[in-house]
């Protein structure tokens, strides 16, 4: 009897862990892969200069030296969770920027995308005494009270990657401008297809993801206006933020609509997932694929031709920009860096609305076959 109970306990534990795992990774990737809802489009020009990491850090150091005396600020940079590649890379960027600028960057976050754990950790960090919080909230609502508390204590509050409630933040660091990013992906697809007429399809991470929907809407509006001969064969197909599902759905899609010659993939698992499906089907030359994806995750499909262009942004730069913005604001009385200005630790001119929003890029960044 006892044995049975113990065995069933283990089974249950395993099952729960699995469930927790599924849920966790689902939310994590959905929220981690991308996240930006911008209202104010910045009056910014495209500043997409691809500099090597070395150049960039050299420039960062140089400007850091001129700025001087960043002091020993304590800056907490908190991702939604620490255990996924996306947020590990952003962390590397944040820590590197901290080292260059001579500030103390703490990159710490929950191990699962649990809002409760995130709030608890921020509460504990506030007690420790820190100068700035950069947070990628798992849930803007849940974060409101604790961020307000931080603000009341004079801590600089910045959100990055995903936006918190606007009333409790001093600045927001966005990945992309939704509209430009959405339009850019369409342009890229047309270029890769080599024609602006034909059947195309959309595969998305989830039907309720606000940022993905914003990109899709920007893209479809743009198609209706600029490429009237492109025909979207069906509503966006949801792949549940999973690479495996993106793979399966792509195969189904190509069976149901063999005439499709271009696919747009939204959310970062679609790049490697859809790309692998097209390659396995032997369609890498017939069907163009432009999809979101992390640079490292996409190398294989970019090389075999399954994926033509991976559109996202560079994650380590995102972490770097969050820290650079925080330091600039701490140094400058909480003023958001002006558009086109130079700040320490950031090699390029800042893209900003000058009041609240700072942008990593306007149209994202493309990763192609190396």
């Amino acid at each position, binding site marked *: 009897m006892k044995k049975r109970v113990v065995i*069933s306990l283990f089974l249950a534990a395993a099952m729960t862990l699995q*469930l*927790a795992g599924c*849920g966790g990774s689902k939310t994590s990737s959905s929220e981690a892969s991308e996240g930006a809802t911008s209202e104010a489009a910045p009056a910014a020009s495209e500043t997409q200069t691809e500099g090597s990491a070395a150049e960039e850090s050299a420039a960062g150091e140089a400007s850091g030296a001129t700025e001087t005396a960043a002091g020993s600020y304590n800056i907490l940079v908190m991702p939604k969770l620490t255990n996924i590649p996306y947020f590990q890379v952003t962390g590397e960027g944040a820590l590197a920027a901290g080292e260059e600028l001579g500030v103390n960057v703490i990159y710490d976050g929950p191990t699962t995308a*649990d*809002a409760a754990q995130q709030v608890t*950790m921020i509460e504990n960090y506030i*007690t420790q005494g820190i100068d700035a919080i950069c947070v990628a909230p798992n849930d*803007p609502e849940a974060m409101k*009270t604790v961020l307000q508390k931080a603000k009341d204590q004079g801590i600089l509050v910045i959100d990055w990657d995903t936006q918190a409630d606007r009333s409790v933040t001093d600045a927001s660091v966005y990945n992309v401008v939704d509209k430009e990013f959405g339009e850019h992906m369409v342009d890229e697809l047309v270029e890769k297809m080599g024609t602006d007429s034909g059947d195309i399809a959309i595969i998305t991470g989830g039907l309720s993801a606000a940022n993905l929907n914003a990109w899709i809407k920007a893209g479809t509006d743009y198609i209706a206006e600029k490429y009237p001969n492109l025909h979207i064969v069906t509503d966006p197909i949801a792949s549940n933020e999973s690479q495996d599902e993106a793979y399966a759905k792509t195969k189904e899609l190509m069976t149901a609509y063999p005439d499709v010659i271009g696919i747009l993939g939204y959310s970062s698992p679609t790049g490697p997932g859809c790309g692998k499906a097209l390659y396995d089907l032997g369609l890498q030359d017939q069907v163009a694929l432009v999809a979101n994806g992390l640079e490292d995750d996409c190398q294989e499909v970019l090389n075999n031709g399954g994926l033509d262009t991976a559109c996202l942004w560079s994650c380590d730069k995102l972490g770097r920009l969050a820290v650079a913005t925080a330091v600039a604001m701490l140094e400058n009385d909480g003023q958001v860096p002006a558009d086109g200005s130079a700040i320490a630790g950031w090699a390029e001119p800042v893209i900003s609305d000058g009041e609240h929003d700072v942008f990593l890029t306007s149209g994202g960044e493309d990763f192609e076959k190396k």
Partner: protein
Amino acid sequence: MKFIRLLREKHPNELVLFLIFVILFAVMAALSPDIFLSGANLQNMMFQMPEFGLMALAMMAAVLTGGMNLSIINGATLSAILAALLMTTEWGKANPLPAAVIGTVAIVVISLLTGVLNGVMIGYIGIVAMLVTLSTQLVFEGIGLIITKGNSIGSLPAPFLAIGSAQIGPVPVPMVVFAVMIAVSYFLLERSKWGREVYMIGDNETATRFSGIHTKKVLMLVYVFSGLLYGLSGVLITSRYCSAKTDYGSSYLMQALTAVVMGGTDINGGRGTVAGTILAVMILQTVSTGFTIHRVDQNLVNIFNGLILLFVLSVRYITGRLIDIKKIRARQATAEN
């Protein structure tokens, strides 16, 4: 001295846990006295512990009968979501105070109903508790997701939000709720007739039934009581995070089970004390806060908690064996005389 000896003989397990807690607390305090022992930090801990502690008690009630309750988190979040819908209606916005009161009551009542559902399936129909609560967990989560589409419901009335942040003197209101429920749990489980029956079922359900105890009803009430505890936890969570969402507190499920087992409750039922569970909750809270304050990698918290659990279980096993050997020797001695 007499008191300590009594404690050693009657409650060796609680004594070990208490010592671990004191040592951990002292170490954390010694490493950074000005931060860890600061009023703000101690208050933080008192704000954070109740929601988790109530979940642990909710789990413990089920484990005492040899069962388990995997639906504690989703039962609470579903109740919170439904109550949040009520509180964010036009009426709720116009009448914040009544809405807050009704919302609070609604969370508890709906949680009680989820408890009744679990209780009927487990007690009256007789399905294994783990399977029932695994199923209901999925059902509660699914309903919550359908209602919210995975988003959170915010803009709750201000008086409701006060529950999670108010304090009486230096003591946070959540801590008061927690303290009251510790007392209630102690008296119901360890001092009442019903509590005795709960432990008996955990030891041997068949024998308990044949001794004329209405085991079905007792079991049912265990899950209703569990519902009350996670319902109150749900009130605190919803209020502290100003919103309701299906996955709030998702990390508490396994932690609650950890606290229960670490606290000395037999996973097969029949043994365990409220004090043990509470001490385990305090240990886990100290580790979690202390590690964050000392900027230790969060993944190490899990490893450390696992090691504490292994240590406690080993100590418990070894002392159990030693006591057995002692008894056997004593018996042999009397037999020889």
